[in-house]
């Protein structure tokens, strides 16, 4: 018995490698379905599934169905690298979508580039990502823009002079955004009076907030994820800090308010789209998403949904289905009417699109303004 189990354990790894041929169009997705960043990977996956289901239900692309192959990278860079290698060489996908985190996109991009397979990231805002090669695209705005939006909004709308920054040192997204914000805010005549850090996954931020409180800022810029921001808002209010909190698209989730409760009300963040939009594309998307998953889509879902549609459109335009042709067609994307705005891919293979500022008001997000590049 014991030996049987041990033998079984020993041969288990060998069962691995087997490739299948299929008539479908294979598209790969790599994302953090488990691990600390799982929430973003899961949203992304929902958006993609919804988009491809819609396309397949409508008959696919030129008669061919799309098959999405999803690989979990557990939120680890090295797993992302091997996931992409696997998608390309083992599963033979024609295009890849991913990742949310810039770090993992940067780890994966050179591999896609090397194998000449187009890779589209829907939410990696770090500028480095698309510099990895001409097969790498992005459908969201980049950190310098978002940081600029945050700084401009703080100075012009909130009339802030002194800002404190609370950055997540574990996240390259957060660090990049914080750096841009600091530079832009100073350029616009403001002053950064505190620049403190935390680590994603922390629960207690009172030490940082106490320090910030003593410096009396007009605004606190927190380029973090909603998972921490909710708690942070609570603790800030408990410490008697009343100034507005400002953040980026990492805040966007229904949970933000559920965790932060009334403490987060009145805070602002820049986002890819607003649920208040009357644009039929958006209204339709939100309605269908709620039907399918019983929750309000966050911006990850919206972005991945758009990305899937853009990719599908590019594939539809190809005469012959090769990765090279898909790449060429992707590059030609102009004024694509997405949920997150009209999307045009520029020469740097980045999306040119505007950002919106929204204010948290309970479960609602009140639209404040749109900032165009």
């Amino acid at each position: 018995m014991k030996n049987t189990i041990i033998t079984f354990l020993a041969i288990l790894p060998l069962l691995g490698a087997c490739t299948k041929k299929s008539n479908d169009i294979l598209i790969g997705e790599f994302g953090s379905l488990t691990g600390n960043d799982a929430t973003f990977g899961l949203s992304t996956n929902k958006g993609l599934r919804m988009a491809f289901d819609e396309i397949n239900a409508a008959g696919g692309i030129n008669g061919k169905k799309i098959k999405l192959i999803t690989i979990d990278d557990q939120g680890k860079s090295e797993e992302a690298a091997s996931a992409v290698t696997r998608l390309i060489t083992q599963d033979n996908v024609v295009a890849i979508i991913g990742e949310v985190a810039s770090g993992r996109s940067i780890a994966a991009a050179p591999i896609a580039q090397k194998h000449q397979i187009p890779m589209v990231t829907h939410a990696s805002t770090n500028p480095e990502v698309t510099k990895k090669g001409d097969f790498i695209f992005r459908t969201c705005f980049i950190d310098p823009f978002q940081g600029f939006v945050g700084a401009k909004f703080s100075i012009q709308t909130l009339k802030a002079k002194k800002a404190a920054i609370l950055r997540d040192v574990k996240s390259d997204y957060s660090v990049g955004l914080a750096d841009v914000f600091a530079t832009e805010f100073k350029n616009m005549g403001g002053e950064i009076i505190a620049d403190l850090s935390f680590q994603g996954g922390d629960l207690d931020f009172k030490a940082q907030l106490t320090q910030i409180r003593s410096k009396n800022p007009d605004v606190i810029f927190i380029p973090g994820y909603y998972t921490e921001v909710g708690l942070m808002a609570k603790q800030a209010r408990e410490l008697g800090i009343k100034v507005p909190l400002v953040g980026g698209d990492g805040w966007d989730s229904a949970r933000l308010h559920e965790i932060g409760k009334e403490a987060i009300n009145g805070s602002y963040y820049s986002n890819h789209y607003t649920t208040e939009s009357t644009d039929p594309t958006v209204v339709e998307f939100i309605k269908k998403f709620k039907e399918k998953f019983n929750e309000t889509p966050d911006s990850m879902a919206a972005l991945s949904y758009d990305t899937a549609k853009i990719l599908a459109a590019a594939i539809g335009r190809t005469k012959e289905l090769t990765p090279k042709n898909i790449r060429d067609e992707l590059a030609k994307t102009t004024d694509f009417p997405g949920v997150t705005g009209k999307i045009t891919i520029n020469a740097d293979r980045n999306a040119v699109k505007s950002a919106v500022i929204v204010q948290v008001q309970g479960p609602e997000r009140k639209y404040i303004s749109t900032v165009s590049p």
Partner: protein
Amino acid sequence: MHKSVKTPLIAFAALLLFGGLLNFGVNAYIQLIVLFVIINSILAMSLNLVNGYTGQFSLGHAGFMAIGAYTSAYASTQFSFFSESFGFIGIFVTTITGGLLASAAGFLVGLPSLRLKGDYLAIVTLGFGEIIRVTLLNMEAVGGPRGISGIPSFPNFFFSFSYSCFWALICFFFIWRLIRSSHGRGFLSVREDEIAAEAMGINTTKTKVQAFVLSSFFAGVAGALFAHVTNFISPSSFTFLMSVNAVIMVVLGGMGSLSGSIAAAFFITLMPEALRSLQEITGVDLRMVIYSLLLILIMILRPQGLFGDKELPDIWRKYVRKSA
């Protein structure tokens, strides 16, 4: 030819042949997994020196690997000499430098091990690993949380394979011969009974620090290889879980068995990949659930690890004798 290099060279030649087959026979994904197996083997063998042969309890191996990886990646990306003409000399120099810096860190971590034992030592090494990671996280020069990207890769798979095998063989033969020498028996005596070892004239302090330094060197080398294979490293690649993974490989393979370490490296690297196919059937990702369950089962069913403290030839001999 001197016999000291004969066996390693034969082994190397055999591996090269195998590498040649892999080069054309399988796709890049399998090739990448093969490279990870080799790197993990170096990691496991080197940790075996501390945990298996010297009986110390280190939980900070990822830290040493990180130092090796960062050093070599930094050298490869920052100094044009390495990146432009990434010739063999350049690769070699960066790898060695990575290993040396890692062993310097190993020296620092080895020092507290003089006073601490068991769980306390484990926790302190864990702490050192975390300190290294947090420090890297905050060093702008090496990219902070962004890590280092665009690390030049080796020219091709065959080169990566041969070069990794080259180091794996060095690591293997180094430890193999060390353990069969008087120096190595000193290591073993520390594991068996420190007080008796001291009484028999073994400088246990020196021995322990030596074990840490040598082990970290190879961990650093493994890190350097890792950096150039993945072309991207960041502090989150070297978490506590990676150290745990290294310890798991050592215990799974058998404390004090080099061939066991290699077998365990195969198993631990391949299993999660193999289980990926399962995901298509079940729909949910049960890989890590199964992985952890297997780990518990193996510890209960075979607490001494796959090979115990025996090496493959011993087991082979025993098996042949039994069946004859």
